[in-house]
């Protein structure tokens, strides 16, 4: 029984550390935020195991839910801004090409 519980605890903790490592090492912002949300939900599961249902509820709702929504919005804004910058650069290049074509004519 105690061995079974030990195995259960180890699986919980190894998954928790694995999720945290993945969130920290992921270079793409949106992936990192989604892994962070998964980490927060898993953490609330671990806290439920440790007999802290209040804190588990709060972590799932505030830490993973609202914190994750805030970070996702920020990641999406920065991705959109990067896209816009790339588009602008492409447009400028196209314009320049048009001008050079006209010059050639």
């Amino acid at each position, binding site marked *: 029984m105690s061995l079974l519980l030990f195995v259960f605890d180890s699986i919980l903790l190894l998954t928790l550390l694995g999720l945290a490592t993945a969130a920290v090492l992921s270079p793409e912002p949106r992936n990192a935020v989604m892994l962070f949300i998964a980490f927060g939900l898993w953490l609330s599961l671990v806290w439920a195991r440790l007999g802290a*249902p209040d804190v588990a509820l*709060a972590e799932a*709702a*505030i830490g993973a839910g*609202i914190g994750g929504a805030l970070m996702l*919005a920020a990641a999406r804004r920065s991705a959109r801004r990067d896209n816009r910058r790339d588009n602008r650069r492409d447009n400028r290049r196209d314009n320049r090409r048009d001008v050079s074509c006209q010059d050639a004519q």
Partner: protein
Amino acid sequence: MNRDLSLLIGILVSLLALLLIWIFYTTLAADPGPRLAPLALEQLPNSGVSHPVTAVLLNYRAYDTLLELAVLLAAILGIWSLGPAPSGFQPAGPALTVLANWIVPLAIITGGYLLWVGGHAPGGAFQAGALLGSAGVILRLAGHERAGLPNEAAQRWLVVAGVGLFLLVGLLLAVFGAGFLTYPKASAKWLILLIETAATIAIGSTLAAAYVGGRPPLAQSTSAASKDLGA
């Protein structure tokens, strides 16, 4: 950052982690000494609530919760002082609108339940406030410019409601009662429920306003037009 430096930082941080784990192990192995838990559980009948975590939050360590609400207020003031909110989302498609119509009332009802149940079971102001805040986030995602919150003047009242009522109760108790935030036993339950209600509203509206991410948008084109039509 170059690779060698990050490797060096990694080695130093792992040494720190090993040191901390060793300290933690020796602390656990030694006798931990008397704990606060028996004292907290022993005084529970005098606290006005029967759930120990709520008793600690709103009665024994009410100062902590008061200051935590003040931190929340300071954060939202900082966000508002950075300028207007970025533009919102486009109005949602029909599926998301229907989903929001179902989820938002459910979240509000569940929030009320969690607030009430906090007196004797897991739950309380923080969880209920988080549910209200996430209802606001869903409304903002579904295209509501202000995340379901009222206009700016009313929002200011909402976000100070928690700290304001908490301080008011504390000062009234200091003047007429036993001392700052020392509840008389008979009315402790209702005072705690009153403070928790105000704290729920403040936490919910602060989190939703933080998600909006700036000063509340003025009534703009579409919302102003619909309001004018409604008036």
